[in-house]
């Protein structure tokens, strides 16, 4: 593991915390720092963890009821009048349901609105497919000027939330419901647009994001014992993509795997493939949901069933090595 990143060393029994909790704490910190930060929510205040901000700054909290389309455009209006709005809901509804409002009134306007999509990914679990956002990275990545961040853990989510408040322009933050392993610490560097090399390697590279970074690290550590040296790069910012780091590792290893809790089309895998196809084509394998809707089940069951577990990642690395 990269010693310069102050990562948590003991990853076998990690501390578990949800990225949505990092968002909630980040909101309060951003709110303390800047009085223009306002938070909007559509009847999901507790589960998006906007509650702490509401309690601390009730006069800067706006409740819209079950109305995500209205929320997106109200936020656009507030930003055009000087505020820094964070809109909180589930990713299936925001940026799902309100996609056109985000496209025109936020992105095309270059409105300074931050969109937090919680309960993203299949690990939402028993609620089922209607609530499991698997296309949100794609939706947001296609919008000109939209910054897209997928934090890998609670700590990174907190930093990403604070960083989103600092930069000017629309940002999408993708958050998960479940508690997932903590890998980064307070001291781990975080800069929007800069990928971090969690583990170095020579034979293959795994580009990953979100809570599956943990599975990617585990897979890479396992593979060491089979004399396969795989690098693991945490691509927390899908847009703007850190082309320099991606290129460097594609050149070095000439075999890449992408890992994300998203459709394999349009998300991180798509972004990496588009980039490398033009800059430096190498064999690629994609880990993610393969053109299917999810279903009800336990998060761990679903991650395995839909091919995003550690074993599936190891297999993908071997497949890509065979294609070198």
């Amino acid at each position, binding site marked *: 593991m990269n010693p310069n990143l102050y990562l948590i060393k003991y990853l076998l029994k990690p501390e578990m915390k949800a990225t949505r909790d990092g968002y909630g704490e980040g909101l309060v910190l951003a709110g303390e720092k800047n009085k223009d930060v306002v938070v909007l929510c559509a009847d999901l205040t507790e589960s998006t963890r906007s509650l702490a901000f509401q309690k601390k700054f009730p006069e800067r909290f706006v*409740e819209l009821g079950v109305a995500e389309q209205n929320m997106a455009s109200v936020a656009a209006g507030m930003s055009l009048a000087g505020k820094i709005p964070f809109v909180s809901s589930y990713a299936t509804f925001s940026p799902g349901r309100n996609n056109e409002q985000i496209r025109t009134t936020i992105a095309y306007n270059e409105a300074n609105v931050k969109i937090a999509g919680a309960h993203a990914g299949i690990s939402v679990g028993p*609620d089922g497919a209607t*609530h499991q956002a698997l296309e949100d990275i794609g939706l947001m990545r296609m919008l000109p000027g939209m910054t897209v961040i997928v934090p890998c853990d609670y700590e990174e989510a907190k930093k990403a939330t604070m960083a989103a408040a600092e930069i000017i322009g629309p940002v999408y933050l993708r958050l998960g419901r479940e508690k997932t392993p903590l890998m980064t610490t307070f001291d781990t560097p975080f800069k929007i647009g800069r990928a971090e090399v969690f583990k170095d390697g020579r034979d293959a590279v795994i580009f990953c994001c979100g809570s599956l970074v943990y599975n990617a690290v585990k897979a890479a550590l396992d593979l060491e014992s089979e004399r396969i040296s795989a690098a693991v790069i945490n691509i927390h910012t899908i847009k703007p993509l850190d082309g320099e780091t991606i290129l460097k590792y594609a050149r070095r290893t000439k075999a890449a795997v992408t890992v994300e809790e998203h459709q394999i089309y349009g998300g991180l895998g798509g972004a990496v493939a588009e980039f490398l196809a033009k800059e430096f084509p190498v064999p690629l394998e994609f880990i993610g949901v393969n053109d299917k809707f999810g279903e009800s089940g336990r998060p761990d069951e679903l991650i395995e069933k839909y091919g995003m577990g550690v074993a599936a990642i190891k297999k993908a690395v071997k497949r890509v090595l065979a294609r070198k």
Partner: protein
Amino acid sequence: MEELHETKLKQLELKANQIRQDIIAMLVEAGSGHSAGPLGMADIFVALYFHVLKHDPRHPEWPGRDRLVLSNGHICPVRYAAMAHAGYFPISELKTLRKLGTRLQGHPHRLALPGMETTSGPLGSGLSQAAGMALALKMDGAPNRVYCAMSDGEHDAGQTWEAVMFAAKYKLNNLTGIIDRNNIQIDGYTEDIMPLDDLKDKYESFNWHVIEINGHNIREFVDACATAQTIFEKPAVIIAHTIPGKGVDFMESKFEWHGKPPNKEEAAAALRELRTLQGQIEAGHID
């Protein structure tokens, strides 16, 4: 619609009680899911499946059936329980709610379960679909009715009102809306979160026929459904005033019970209470 005799009414009340017990058992087994809404709508779903709807559980695709759209998909445990008792699938299957491989998805999926007319969960899109079905049936001169169960919370969503205007424009008198007016949503009481004020006035000004009832009075609901069928040139909506969590004292009217299941002890207490009520209905102490 067939007349509702006293003996049948009592059967339906017992059935609603049974379904409430099933809902508790399903939720505690699943370990997640929604308690308040399903319990509050048990009387209405029993009335629908055992008296109002034209349907055939052995032939869920029967073309002559009435269509029931559940817009507020999160209350699906009540529909699953009513469907199981009506004979759509074995009652034992209720225990699979929300588990891997189940037909009883956490939010209903049309393709998973025969008889589930459409997929829902994301709020506010049911009435549009119900209106689409009603319009298509009208185009074909078909006699089927379309029922659309909705929540009050989803009246925050613009799409609901788009559908309200649409149904009035096309005079969809084969469409009956049913609103679970329980005054709660996730973040609190509806009038604090997004005031809906008087839904009756709103619907009337949008050219709908409105009937307000006590949603726990099966006879009132059945009568309202019969009246709705007699309205010319207008869609009808039944605003059912209900108590969320109905039948379980510690859940009643508490928005905190919107989206959580009872734990084992709470479930045991709830079932004790519901069985006591069952005894009272059997003994004729509750009308």
